[in-house]
């Protein structure tokens, strides 16, 4: 028996996606930039995938940039924007804002700029106890030279949905004010939407974002492919150089099978979104309810009404997360943990700490991420096994540590 409850880590490639990709490895292997018929066959497939992606995002196909993954998309968005503003505009000191709960692929870009670029000032917006970005603090942090705000759509650890549309309103208001003052500083909005794509609309017109990152393998597509939506007229400069693919923003031979897979996966995701939201929400609510009923001292990290349908991040006080994870794995159940002991560092999850959760509780956090293929029977079995595992691990702890 194997039960997979780690869909935020990665998802299996959908069979339809795999089928769509298959011809582009050996049969239609051409380089999409070659002019001959081999190249043309690949180029047509890429164009088709670009259109599917544009449909998913409600944008123009020209605004789609294929990357090697969401990490690269985030890096191009943040570092590329700063580089473009510095080189082309000569604005002097610029200010950029992100949240404290971002994925490392965003957070470390900001930290890199903070350490190594004297022209860039950085602010990190805190979150409330439910893991949602504090809008008041965000609004107060915007300065006259703020050029970028990057806030994720759905947090990968807790599933907390971030108020993107409200952030857009703040940004629009700021931009109007700047227009009146003839400010030379533009203001861009980037979102890492990796964890949102299965359940939430990624219509960039409604979200009013300038830059948006997606990952293939989180939406039943292949690993090694991602998307950066770049709104027309967004100032962006490449961070890697070569053959000028993707309008020069992402040089490198196009990963044709990956791109085909990405397009197909997004097409499926768009079609199944509402149905999946309903189905997975119900399963996840069942999991939370059963855990609360059967396992004492279990605490949901986040607000059940404002988290992604896939997510349940639960702390089991007095049971260290990695030990629970390992025991569950022996039972055939795959989950993930916020504990430091599984990450190689000594500090527990930066997301849980940012929510004000004490380090002891963060160490005992287990992240369950469900999907449409999970069943009610699986969830019931998981709770049964989990109850025994948590109880075994808790019994090993000395009294003083149990409190």
């Amino acid at each position, binding site marked *: 028996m194997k039960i997979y409850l780690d869909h935020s880590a990665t998802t299996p490639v959908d069979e339809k996606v795999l089928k769509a990709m298959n011809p582009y490895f050996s049969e239609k292997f051409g380089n999409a930039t070659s002019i001959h018929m081999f190249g043309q066959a690949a180029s047509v497939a890429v164009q088709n995938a670009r259109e599917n992606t544009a449909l998913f995002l409600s944008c123009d196909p020209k605004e789609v940039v294929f990357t090697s993954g969401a990490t690269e998309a985030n890096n191009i968005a943040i570092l590329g924007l700063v580089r473009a503003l510095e080189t082309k505009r000569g604005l002097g000191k610029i200010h950029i804002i992100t949240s404290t709960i971002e994925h490392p692929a965003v957070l470390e870009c900001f930290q890199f700029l903070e350490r190594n670029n004297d022209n860039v000032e950085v602010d990190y917006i805190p979150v409330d106890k439910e893991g949602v970005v504090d809008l008041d603090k965000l609004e107060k942090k915007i300065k006259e030279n703020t050029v970028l705000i990057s806030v994720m759509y759905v947090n990968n650890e807790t599933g907390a949905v971030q108020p993107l549309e409200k952030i857009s309103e703040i940004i629009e208001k700021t931009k109007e004010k700047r227009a009146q003052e003839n400010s030379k500083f533009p203001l861009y909005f980037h979102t890492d939407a990796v964890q949102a794509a299965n359940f939430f609309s990624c219509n960039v017109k409604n979200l009013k974002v300038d830059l948006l990152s997606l990952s293939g393998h989180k939406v039943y597509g292949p690993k090694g492919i991602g998307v950066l939506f770049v709104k027309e007229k967004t100032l962006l400069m490449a961070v890697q150089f070569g053959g000028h693919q993707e309008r020069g923003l992402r040089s490198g031979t196009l990963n044709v099978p990956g791109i085909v897979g990405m397009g197909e996966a997004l097409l499926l995701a768009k079609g199944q979104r509402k149905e999946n939201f309903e189905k997975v929400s119900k399963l996840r609510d069942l999991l939370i309810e059963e855990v609360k009923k059967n396992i004492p001292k279990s605490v949901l990290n986040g607000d059940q009404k404002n988290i992604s349908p896939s997510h349940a991040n639960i702390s089991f006080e*007095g049971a*260290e*997360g*990695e*030990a629970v994870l*390992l*025991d569950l*794995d*022996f039972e055939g159940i795959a989950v993930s943990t916020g*504990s*430091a*002991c*599984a990450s*190689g*560092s*000594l*500090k*527990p999850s930066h997301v849980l700490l940012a929510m004000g959760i004490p*380090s*002891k509780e963060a*160490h005992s956090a287990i992240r369950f991420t469900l999907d449409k293929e999970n069943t009610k029977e699986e969830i019931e079995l998981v709770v049964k096994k989990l109850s025994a595992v948590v109880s075994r691990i808790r019994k*090993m*702890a*000395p*009294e*003083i*540590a*149990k409190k």
Partner: protein
Amino acid sequence: MRDVINNYRFKDMYTKQVLEHFRNPRNLGKLKNHNTVGQEGNPSCGDVMKIYLKIDSRKNKEGKIEEYIKDIKFETLGCAAAIAVSSLLTEAAKGKSVLEAKKITKEDILKDAGGLPPAKIHCSMLGIDALRTAIKNYEDKK
């Protein structure tokens, strides 16, 4: 169980010995007739280890009276490595003279564990610290 452990994919991360002691810890729990305890915690990773000892006297080979660890038990809050290391440590210390038990090093425990991932090596020190604290508490009381 042994088969599961032998074929386990975590074997790249944890050795057979570590997994075996995590799944079937030896000398786990409270020691009712203990005469000393030692507890150590690592504030940064949150691990806590408690060692209970029953120290008694016996005649050694040379016929001299010596104190030795007659019985030992542990309680641990921590990851799989922390639990396994505690278990391995109790096995290493049980029956040893107090003098010898004090000389158990991190290297000895790492050897018994068949090695640990680099990030987990601090776990092994925590157990040794708890053992030494227990012995020190006993000696201070005398």
